[in-house]
């Protein structure tokens, strides 16, 4: 009879163990869920464009048609070209510059004086780098052509000075926080 008690005891333990083993199947720890919406990333902008054709004016400030106006010694003509600069971006900054004039000059060099393009914003010299202001900015390029009054004789009558193309560049510059 002792044997049967021993056997029962063993059987009970075995069943209990089996039950324990059955309880270890699925592991249900706490878990929770949340969703994040990172949003939409929008890029800024950088652009420079001519808003309209440039304008030539004489010494008195009157607009002239460069295709028909003929200069004489003492004439000083000024060319202004407005450039529309678009800048957007929280770390946006850009330098505006000109690559200069490479003209075809038919005058005697000593008889003309041509300035390099000067860049201004609102009348004052441009201070690079430009930063976004929330709306388009206007940068004005100015070139002056003077047929010097020191010209003598009949020098450079019916001569021509072809400006060709004058390029302006807007180049992003790095800022703190960019790499």
């Amino acid at each position, binding site marked *: 009879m002792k044997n049967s008690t021993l056997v029962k005891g063993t059987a009970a333990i075995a069943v209990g163990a089996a039950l324990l083993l059955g309880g270890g199947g699925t592991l249900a720890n706490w878990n929770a869920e949340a969703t994040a919406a990172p949003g939409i990333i929008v890029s800024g902008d*950088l*652009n*420079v*464009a*001519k808003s309209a054709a*440039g304008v*030539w004016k*004489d*010494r008195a400030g009157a607009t*002239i048609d*460069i*295709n*028909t*106006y*003929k*200069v*004489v*010694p*003492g*004439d*000083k*003509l000024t*060319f202004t*070209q407005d*450039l529309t600069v678009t800048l957007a971006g929280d770390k946006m900054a*850009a330098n505006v510059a000109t690559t200069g004039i490479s003209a075809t000059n038919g*005058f005697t060099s000593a008889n003309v004086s041509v300035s390099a393009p000067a860049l201004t914003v609102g009348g004052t010299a441009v201070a690079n780098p430009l930063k976004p202001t929330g709306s388009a900015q206007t940068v004005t*390029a100015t*070139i002056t*052509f003077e*047929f010097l*009054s*020191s010209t003598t004789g*009949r020098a*450079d*009558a*019916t*001569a*021509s*000075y*072809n*400006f*060709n*193309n*004058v*390029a*302006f*560049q*807007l*180049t*992003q*510059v*790095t800022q703190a926080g960019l790499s």
Partner: protein
Amino acid sequence: MRIKRRLQAAALAAAAVVLGLLAVQGTYALWSASAVASPGTVSSASFDTALTAVNTGQTTTMTLPDGTAATLTLSPAGTLGPGTSVYGGLVVTNTTTAGGQFNTAITASQPSIANVNGGTLAGYVTVNAKTATSSAECSTATGFAPVGTGGLASPTVAKGGTTVFCFQVSLSSSAPSTVKGQAVNISLQLTARQLCGVPSGC
């Protein structure tokens, strides 16, 4: 062996540094944009002055196409007797193609009187001049005066404007009959000069 390893390590480090520098200098690509302006061609004007002889109507430009100075013969009308005068004139026009202001002043030099064929007439001939506003004034005897060493300057002649020079050639009333039939060549120079158009001065 240790030295060799150190050298190896140093070489490796050096190589890494070089690579790093190269990488930084390679491409620097941030945004850029460009715009191009075309100012056009600036052309200069011609400097032309037209001359018209009053008596003959003959015209010429002051400067010939080859760049040399033109010669205009005035041909005063009539014959010259002792105590008489003949008259000639010249209309000068500023024909520049200038776009803006282009004022000129014309100056007639002192005339030179030269005998032709070895005569003596020149000593008895005087030339006077005056400026005028119309060629008709060249027929009137008033207003003539000798030309000084500095020449006779016209008033300002604006773009498209004209001025007139009149000349009076007189034979002295004391001229002897031996000069009868002789001839002289009278010549003078005309110079056109642009006047300063710069407000602050030239």
